[in-house]
Structures are given as C-alpha cells and as structure tokens.
C-alpha cells in the first residue's frame, strides 16, 4: 500500500515530530524517556562515515534492543565518568526516502552542539540520520536509527545519545 499525497504529508509530519522529540528528550536531559521512542526490538547505531563508506561494521555505539538503550542511559547516570556537558541538536528537514506499508525510511541531517563547564559551545558531532520508522501503531516508533557522523574525530568521548 503506497501513501497518497495527503497521507504522505501526514507521514512526513509524524517522522519530523519523532526526530524533533528524539532531539528534545536528549537535549533536555530527559534521557529516561528517550528509549521509549524505539521499538523493543530496535537497532540504534552511531557510526563514523569513515567506516560506513568503506562498508565496515565498526560503530561507536551499537544497540540491538531497547534494553541496551536503557542500559546506556543507566550507565550514563550511574556508572560512567565523563566531563559535564550538554547537547543541543539542530535538525534539517526529514525527507521520506521510501515507504512500504506503514514503514517509512527517512533521512535527516543533524548537528549536535556541545557546551561544557567552560561555557563555550562547539560543534561536537555532525552527520545524517537514516531511520526506519513504524507509523502503524498508536505512535510512531524508531525500528532503527542509524547516525552516520562526519566528525570522525570524537572530542574526548561520547556518552550521551546522538
């Protein structure tokens, strides 16, 4: 079943809002709510363009269940030692690459700005999301989110979701 134009616009709106919410929850430090944007059986991969373009699988972050996303957040809160910092995502428009049934494949440019305790804001990580979003349920969910980042040189560390 393909989407008619008006439905296409609706899907466009849904996926745009989902990505905006993803960014907002992370930036506002509402990290415990963030895994709920993902299907239980999801994939979340953050990979350097350097590896992605060479078809290499090595990712900075690789999670293949919502449980692993929760574990990353609990680690951030309770386990990991890292410099104090905050993020601000800036997102480009989400473009529908393709649809199949209620599944939408979507690409969105992103930039994550970081501010540490010294108060300077820098460009921390920039790239594109390629998402598979399930629009068939009560609310849209990420089946998979792939963040391919151009910023091959990671500044100090990466602990907060991109």
């Amino acid at each position: 079943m393909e989407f008619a134009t008006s439905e296409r616009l609706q899907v466009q709106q849904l996926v745009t809002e989902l990505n905006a919410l993803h960014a907002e929850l992370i930036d506002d430090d509402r990290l415990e709510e963030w895994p709920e944007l993902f299907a239980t059986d999801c994939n979340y991969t953050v990979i350097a363009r350097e590896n992605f373009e060479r078809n290499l699988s090595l990712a900075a972050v690789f999670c293949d269940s919502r449980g692993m996303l929760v574990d990353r957040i609990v680690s951030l809160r309770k386990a990991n030692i890292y410099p104090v910092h905050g993020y601000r995502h800036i997102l480009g428009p989400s473009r529908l690459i393709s649809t199949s049934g209620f599944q939408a494949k979507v690409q969105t440019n992103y930039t994550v700005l970081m501010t540490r305790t010294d108060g300077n804001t820098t460009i921390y990580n920039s790239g594109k999301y390629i998402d598979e979003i399930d629009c068939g349920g009560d609310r849209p969910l990420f089946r998979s989110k792939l963040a391919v980042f151009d910023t091959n040189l990671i500044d100090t560390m990466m602990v907060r979701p991109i």
Partner: protein
Amino acid sequence: MNDIALNAETPLQPVAGAGCRVPYRVFTDPAYYQREQENIFKGETWSFVALEAEVPEPGDFKSTFIGETPVIVTRASDGTVHVVVNRCAHRGALVCREVRGNRPNLECVYHQWAYDLEGNLIGVPFRRGLKGQGGMPGDFDMTQHGLRKLQTHSVGGLVFASFSETVEPLRDFLGPIVVEQIERIMCKPIQVLGDQRQLVHGNWKLYAENTRDPYHASLLHLFHNTFGLYRSTQTGKSVMDANKRHSLLYSIAASNDDAADKQAYGDSRTFDTEFKLQDMSLLKGRQEFDDGVTLVILAVFPNLVLQQIQNTLAVRQIVTKGTDAFELVWTHFGYADDDAEMQAIRLKQTNLIGPAGLISMEDGEAVEIVQNAIIGENQATSYIAMGGGRAENADHLVTEGAIVGFWENYEKLVGYGTAP
C-alpha cells in the same frame, strides 16, 4: 633556539621517602614537548604506524603521523612495506593528501613530482626544460631527491618505523615479552573492523601512564569492576621489558571470586552490586585463548597500545598534537576466520571500548582532569608509589611500577631530574 636546561631552572625540593616524583611541568612546558619530538619520536625508537592488514595489496597506502611528522605507509609492488616522510623533496608540500587508498605511485599535486611507492623520485616535469628553455641544473641527480625513507619492520603484522639508522633492531627494541604478546594476539590472519578517532585534551604522557596503570583500572572503571572484566584481585601481572620502556598488564577473569572480591573492595563506587544491565548480551563472550587470559594491555613505547579486553582486539596509536592534546587512533580487528557468532560478539563488545566505550571513554576524562589541574604548575610533582615506587615487575595488579619504568626511560631520553 634556546637550549633550555630542562632540569636546572626550578630544582626539585629534596623529599624523603620512597616513590617516584614527576614534575608536572613536563606535561605543559613546550620545551619538553620539543625535546620529545627530537629525542623520542625522531630518536632511537620505533613508532607504530599501521597494521599490515591496513595495506594488504600493492599500491595500498595509509597516511599517519610519528609524533608530529606526517608519514606515508605503502605496500610496494614487490609486496614489501615502506614508510616515508610525507613531504615533497622539492618545496616541502604534502605528497599524500588522503588518509588511505591505492595508487601506482605517489605524486605531489603542486608540480607533479612523482615518487615510486618506496619513495624514490621517478618523475620531474620539465626536468630537461621546455622548448629548449629552463630545466633543472646539469648536476641534478634524482637519486638525491627522494622522499625521506624510514627504517621499517614488522612484528606479527604490526608495522613500525624509525627515523634512526642506528636504533637497535625492532625485535630488540621490543624485547621478548612484547614480541611474544604481539604474536599471541596476532596469531592468525586478522580482519580490520574499522577505525575510531578520539581527541583527548591532555598531554600524551598522561595516556602512557594510564595504560601502564593496573591500579586505576578497577577504581575508575565501574564496568570493569562490577562485571568482573577486570579487578585488581584477579590473577594477573604487571611486567616490563628489560629496559622498562614497555608494559604488559594482563589478568584472568575466571579467577574472580565475587564474594571475596566484594569484601576486598568494600564500599567502592565501582563495585556496585545494584548496577544491573537489562540486556546482558553486551557482555556475552567466548574464550578465545587457551591461556585463559581475558585482558591484555600491552603499552609499547612510545606510541602504541595493543589490547585484548574480552573479545575486543585493537591497536591504539597515540598521535601527539601539542603539549595539551593527542589523538588516539583505534583500529579494531577480528580474525579472518571469525564465524558469524564471533563477529556479532565483537561488534557488541565494541560498546565497551573506543571513544564511546563504556570502559574506555573514562580514560579520556582521567587524562583531562590532570591536564586541567596542573596548568602553570612549575614546582609541584606527582607522587607514584603504589607497589613500592620502584620500576619493578609485580605478580599482582596493585602497583604503579610500570609507570615508574616509563619515567626512568623518559629521564634517559629527555631528562628532567628525579627524586633523590
């Protein structure tokens, strides 16, 4: 250029007692950094530059750095590996402007001077002039204008290079323990899984200390301690080569005794029985080595760490970027004969290491909090004494002896003046 007397200007106060004291200025003063570039990275040492598996085919190249000097690693048409300085013999331009690729020869874009993959100059446009005008002088000898060639050797598929013609042979520089450990991990053909790059805002020697430090590993890294990947209570050792440049730190996870270990660690932040994972598949592994060793941190002076943490295998190359920054280049690998399950295990365990690593990210912070606290400090020193404060091997993991070994070598190569 001032020939600064590094150890004379602010003499250290005599201090009683055991222990090694390192003046913090060695991490911040540009004079030390310059001496390091000359005496360490361009001196009588071997620096790691690549895995052979990164340049498998003739024509393959990789550009990287030794200290601050850009170099190119190539696989020549006869299959041999070469390392040359990435600087055109003409007027100093970078010859190779890409990180990796495959080319039949090297050509500088500026005036199209061409070099073969061994660095010999093979082409100079207008060498004999154009239409009877110009041209190079009559005594121009192409063999005198090649790329600067570095001594290059491999051990276990790890490629090292040296600026020195008089440095001891690579296998002697490494010593038998390091060679054996390299060959233990590099026991069969590998497959490169990819690279990660981490910029750490601290002096490179702070990372050299960190990777020679079994004392910190269970006290900084909760994932190591709580999940028993590494505890200082494990069976393991801290061992150096005869010259105390390099450090082998290894341990066996099967030696964990959770009840006893919990008692030993008491209320330590990092032994947290309340901390649980929803998805334990992150830690699922498979014993790969018959010796049962599950953690190896092999710190090879000056710029390499070869590691095995459970089923993650990687090299970490240190690239200096001034006194207060370095880039850590992680090249992760598996074995060419890994089955699908092992590939999946390695992919998932990669979440533990690298710049986003649930363990490894914390070493970045550890380095940075030192660099931030020692700014402008010309007098004070650190105090390194766990395990006795001497450059000694230990058959346990409660020591800083290998860190002392590093500094004894630093003093020989660069100099700063040590404790009485």
